[in-house]
């Protein structure tokens, strides 16, 4: 028997869902299709899921972290509230993620360098090959079996030494070959050190060969559709990682997975990926059957969630992942909607906390090649750091939080149309530019770095990140927290003020302090300083431009000669593309994985001290920034 249901109306959209009594309001919103900024995993601690009761009653939802004035006006934490009867609930626009996915023209929003296929010295050889074969007709003199006839031709053309084939594919051969007069296209995928004949089609379909390359970030997932014939990026899509509802950091998600099963995190990710895939293929003339591979890079827990393998030991000493180099699997087995014979490649990572996003980054920056020391810092929800050269590589990881991706900053957003990506001072006046000059809607990572730097330089915030009273008429109190309003609601695209608060600045300082301390300690363990770093690669999804001077001003990166600093964007995606298009690159990643040592900061007793030193703008040791 089903429980009695009731009607929940979400305003201002007037979306109605019927849910059972006792359903959490957050879940009802999710069923109605809203993506709520709940970041704590429903623990009632992040205040991201605030909603307002307009009519009717709910039970629970009131929490001590809400202010009395909020409670009086019907504000609830939707994760703590459940539906009792028919209700009308308003969802403030701030409670929702700005946009679910980048659509249509959004490819322009991505940085040019991300779309380019990087130049490499490898031989072009994609993970999936299509070859058109005009086979010799069998005769009494040429009496090889159908299957072996195809394999022999493939070996001759592509040079594989061994090819294995699934039974279903073999079963399809006799009819297919004879109906098409032995003119067929074979699709072959690299599978471990061998090759697999995935499927055979009639006629010549060599040009219909695509892969989807994915950077599975903790906060943001980015997917590119790549043509494996022309080596071009066709389209790009991104979305916020739907797993955020289980917690904003992977540790919270692993705990959620333990409570309620890895399955939920897995299916959420698969559904995000399927949405991205359909978005990429939508209104194109490419069908999902022409997509033969998905190549994914991400931190190790994300890869575990992708493959639905247990994560429970990653977060416990001694932090052992289940696998850092999983074999390719049939994508359809995991419910991914590409060609049902297509393969899913999860690139190899290094440890539980340094994943394939970093091995891909090492591949993309070619730091494994040089004589001089290079440092790569990839700033995402975790900050990962690699130092080394052609002889050795050393890595470490520090949790930074999502503020540099524009999340967990009240007016933050991903780098997409309308994001404030640049802030600068002109004659004492603060000005800004948005992506594609769209009406401003919020800050992306580069905009956040800029505005804090500018506010610091204009002495509107002090080095602790606190506003200096009376320093500007744009400072006001919001919810009891001081904030600087950059764009008034009249000018903003979202019709709401765009501001940066002391809490936002604190989030950013914490993030950059975690990363800076990790860099400092890793170099220290190698008996090096920043002066020894010949090239400093800064990677991450900040938006198109990052102002290096501003990044130095706030102490995100050290004050080293600017020509040594290279902003390289999303290296996880770039490296994954290289691995997708160049088999040698794919092999190189495995080599990188084997040659990179992981240093666990849990063993660094000076981490807290270095962190505290960096909890300042730019740093307590300001001398190193002079």
């Amino acid at each position, binding site marked *: 028997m089903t429980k009695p249901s009731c009607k929940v109306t979400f305003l201002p959209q007037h979306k109605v869902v019927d849910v059972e009594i006792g359903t959490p309001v957050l879940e009802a919103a999710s069923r109605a299709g809203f993506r709520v900024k709940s970041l704590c995993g429903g623990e009632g601690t992040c205040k991201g899921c605030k909603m307002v009761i307009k009519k009717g009653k709910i039970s629970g939802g009131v929490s001590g972290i809400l202010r009395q004035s909020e409670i009086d006006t019907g504000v609830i934490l939707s994760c703590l509230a459940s539906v009792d009867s028919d209700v009308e609930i308003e969802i403030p626009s701030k409670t929702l993620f700005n946009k679910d996915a980048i659509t249509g023209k959004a490819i322009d929003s991505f940085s040019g360098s991300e779309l380019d296929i990087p130049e490499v010295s490898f031989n072009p050889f994609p993970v999936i090959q299509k070859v058109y074969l005009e086979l010799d007709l069998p005769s009494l003199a040429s009496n090889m079996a159908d299957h072996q006839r195809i394999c022999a031709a493939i070996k001759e053309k592509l040079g594989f030494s061994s090819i294995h084939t699934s039974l279903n594919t073999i079963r399809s051969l006799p009819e297919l070959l004879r109906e098409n007069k032995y003119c067929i296209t074979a699709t072959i995928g690299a599978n471990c050190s061998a090759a697999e004949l995935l499927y055979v089609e009639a006629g010549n379909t060599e040009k219909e060969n695509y892969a989807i390359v994915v950077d599975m970030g903790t906060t943001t997932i980015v997917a590119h559709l790549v043509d494996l014939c022309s080596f071009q990026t066709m389209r790009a899509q991104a979305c916020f990682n739907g797993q955020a509802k289980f917690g904003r950091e992977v540790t919270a998600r692993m705990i959620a997975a333990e409570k309620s099963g890895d399955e939920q995190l897995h299916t959420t990710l698969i559904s995000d990926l399927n949405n991205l895939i359909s978005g990429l293929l939508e209104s194109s003339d490419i069908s999902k059957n022409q997509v033969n591979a998905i190549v994914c890079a991400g931190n190790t827990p994300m890869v575990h969630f992708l493959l639905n393998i247990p994560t429970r030991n990653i977060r416990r000493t001694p932090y052992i992942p289940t696998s850092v180099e999983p074999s390719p699997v049939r994508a359809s087995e995991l419910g991914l909607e590409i060609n049902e014979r297509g393969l899913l490649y999860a690139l190899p990572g290094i440890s539980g906390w340094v994943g394939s996003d970093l091995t891909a980054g090492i591949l993309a920056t070619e730091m494994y090649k040089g004589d001089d020391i290079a440092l790569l810092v990839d700033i995402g929800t975790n900050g990962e750091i690699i130092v080394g050269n052609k002889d050795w590589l050393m890595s470490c990881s520090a949790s930074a939080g999502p503020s540099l991706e524009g999340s967990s900053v009240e007016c933050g957003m991903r780098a997409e149309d309308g994001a404030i990506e640049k802030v600068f001072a002109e004659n004492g006046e603060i000005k800004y530019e948005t992506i594609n000059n769209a009406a401003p809607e919020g800050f992306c990572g580069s905009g956040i770095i800029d505005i804090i730097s500018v506010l610091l330089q204009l002495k509107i915030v002090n*080095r602790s990140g606190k506003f200096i009273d009376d320093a500007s008429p744009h400072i006001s109190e919001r919810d009891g927290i001081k904030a600087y309003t950059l764009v008034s609601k009249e000018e903003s695209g979202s019709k709401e003020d765009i501001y940066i608060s002391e809490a936002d600045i604190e989030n950013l300082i914490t993030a950059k302090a975690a990363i800076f301390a990790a860099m400092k300690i890793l170099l220290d363990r190698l008996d090096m300083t920043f002066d020894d770093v010949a090239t400093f690669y800064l990677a991450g999804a900040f938006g198109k431009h990052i102002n290096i001077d501003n990044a130095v001003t706030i102490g995100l990166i050290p004050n080293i000669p600017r020509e040594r600093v290279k902003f390289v964007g999303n290296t996880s995606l770039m490296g994954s593309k290289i691995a997708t298009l160049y088999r040698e690159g794919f092999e190189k990643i495995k080599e990188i994985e084997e040659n990179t040592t992981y240093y666990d900061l849990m063993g660094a007793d000076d981490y807290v001290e270095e962190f505290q030193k960096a909890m*300042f703008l730019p740093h307590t040791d300001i001398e190193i920034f002079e």
Partner: protein
Amino acid sequence: MDIPKVNERWTSQINEVTIGATADQGGTRSKVITVGGQTTLPGMTFEGDIPNSPVIAGYVSDVVPEWPDFLKKAIGNEINSPTEWAQKCVQEFGCDLISLRLNGADPSGDDKSAADCAKVVENVLKAVDVPLIIWGCGDDDKDAIVLQDCSAVVKGENCLIGSAKESNYKTIVAICKADNHKIISEAPVDINIGKQVNILLQDAGYDLKDVVMFQTTAALGYGLDYVYTILERARMTGLKGDKLMAGPQLADVGGEVWRIKDAVASEEILPGWGDPERRGPSWEAACAADYLQAGADILVMSHPSAIKTIQETITQIA
């Protein structure tokens, strides 16, 4: 065989900070107190100079602290009047200066007005001829009002005002710049926050040469070892040339020791610990001696016999 000389060679000098002003200098003190200026660690005179000995500031409060009776008795009836207490500290206990705490201003205590507090400060100033250290009650909002008034009545006396923290430094800087006082910068047993507060003071336009550093104080058994290492590290950082950490340091021993049961509880409560009348002052003296070695330049102290012990220690090590 010759044993090689392994003397440490420090490259820098701790700032000299002078507290108080004589008539020539625009004040009314008969003498001023200078601390800091050393180029070596405490007692290590063979490695550098220690031009100014550490000093003892007598603890005085505007309201009678919740102290054990034996301590109040040792100080005498004068404890009931801040002016008489201050006089006794100078005349009988031989304190170099007075550390006046305006505990009565505490909003959750007596909540005395700023005017009342300023009156106390004015009276204490008249009652003694040594320089003053003036502290609020520790409540940032209240102290902002109280210290402003108290600072104004001792304008030109070059007092040492406490304390500037991350949360209230702007107010303290404004007050001290207006009335020409020195500042105590305070951090919660954290060398980095200590430095950060100093940077904030400097950014707010205050000269760090006028700052005395205070890392709060812990009594023996309550984290003294932590504070000790912080004072020592701060001092070494200063001697190595970090101008931001080159201030003299203060330890509020008298304000801290008499809050812990180990120093005050009777023998019935702590059997075998001995008579608290001897144990208490020994505890205070032991803590003070530790902080002397750690690098404290100003010791705030309460019990007359502990003060006496430390005065001897200072003559021995300086």
